[in-house]
């Protein structure tokens, strides 16, 4: 299982690249939609980049459940190879 701090850092970099949110603002408790103002189109891009970077599959129905940055970190930690 990957280190969650590293995963958070990596995910924050992706979010900054795709959605322009400063990576320091991408913290575990933040909601992608409500706090970071990320739309469904950007979420798809973030998921594809996360899959490539962390070697994990994020099916669409799982993606819909990842409400917060912490949810995403937990999912990747539990499912990455």
């Amino acid at each position: 299982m990957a280190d969650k701090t590293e995963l958070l850092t990596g995910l924050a970099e992706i979010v900054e690249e795709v959605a322009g949110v400063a990576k320091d603002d991408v913290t575990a408790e933040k909601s992608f939609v409500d706090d970071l103002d990320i739309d469904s189109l950007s979420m798809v891009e973030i998921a594809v980049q996360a899959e490539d970077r962390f070697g994990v599959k994020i099916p669409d129905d799982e993606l819909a459940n990842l409400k917060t940055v912490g949810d995403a970190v937990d999912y990747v930690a539990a499912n990455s190879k």
Partner: protein
Amino acid sequence: MSNTDVVITGIGATTPLGPDVTSTWDGLLAGRSGVRALDADWAETYDLPVRIGATLAEEPTEKIPRVRARRLDRCEQVALIAAWQAWEDAGFSLPSDDGEDVEPERLGVSIGTGIGGPVTLLEQDDNLEQHGMRKVSPLTVPMLMPNGPAAHVGIELRARAGVHSPASACASGAEGIAKAYDMIRSGRADVVVAGGAEACIHPITIAGFAQARTVSTRNDDPEHASRPFDVDRDGFVLGEGAGVMVLESAAHAEARGARVYGKVAGTGITSDAYHITGNHPEGIGQIAAMRQAIEQAGITARDVGHVNAHATSTVVGDVGEAAAIQQALGDHPVVTAPKSALGHLVGGAGAVEGIATLLAIYHGVVPMTLNLGELDPKVELDVVAGEPRKMELSAAISNSFGFGGHNTALLFTTP
């Protein structure tokens, strides 16, 4: 339609001559050319016969932050930049949490484009072919759709009275303005942000136009390649850019004490029903469009002192238009062909040239046509060459014609 007067209170543009209206207008008066050698390696890769283009003077990413820019096709980017400028020029602030300067239900958008976002389509097709479906951007469709430029401007300015995107090839920008005029006169909107945009310089468009034998191949001399009405013309030069105007009912403009550049006093839109690329040999559609605009404005041909010609620098098109102008208006209008400097901005052309026509009246000076070494003897018109011509104007027409047989004439007057 009512008799509502429609005035212009804001203008914006980004073109091969400059990143705003002032630099573009100054460029026209100074006789600068926006045509240059394309530095893209693909011209060589595909052995294209055309290696020149009128590329933007300033990259859109100088004005649009990176993350926002990557969600927008280049055509959408230039539309947004021109719209920001026009909006600010009209004295409006962008909508905020505190509200809007124009009631959203009374604000419309009408920004046309010839083909929208083909470059996005082709880039995403490359992604699909090379990396598979997962690498296709979820923004592919909103970036390639031709209503994208208008839609983004509508969202930005909070326009809820309807967002339109006329597509009539090289007449799209002019038709965008004509549509806006109708929206205000029919009472659907008080303010409409209108114009046109294009950014499609790509090997496929260059190859397509080259195969249609419509573009100049004067690769060794870019600045002299676009030469409307000259005996040695050999086709147009593909350009990119956008022009946007803020059109407003005179009552709305007066109530807020807005600065008024002039009026859209009439528009003419006709179609040739003749050939998909060629204009009607007798110019019936072009003549009818100019006459419609005059009739709508309630003036006579004699009152039209200036024509900003469509004149793209093609062998057939330029003489056809010259004859049409003569028949519709007479010999008296002073004519200029700004594509000699700007190149052909396709869907952006009618809007940018509409702004130039308006400014000719506003400043009392007509920019010259570049590269007019020897006027084609079939062109029996007073074409401004050498230097700008100072003259007082009360009414002027901007012509725009497009593949498909679209003819649009915009008639501008003093307020």
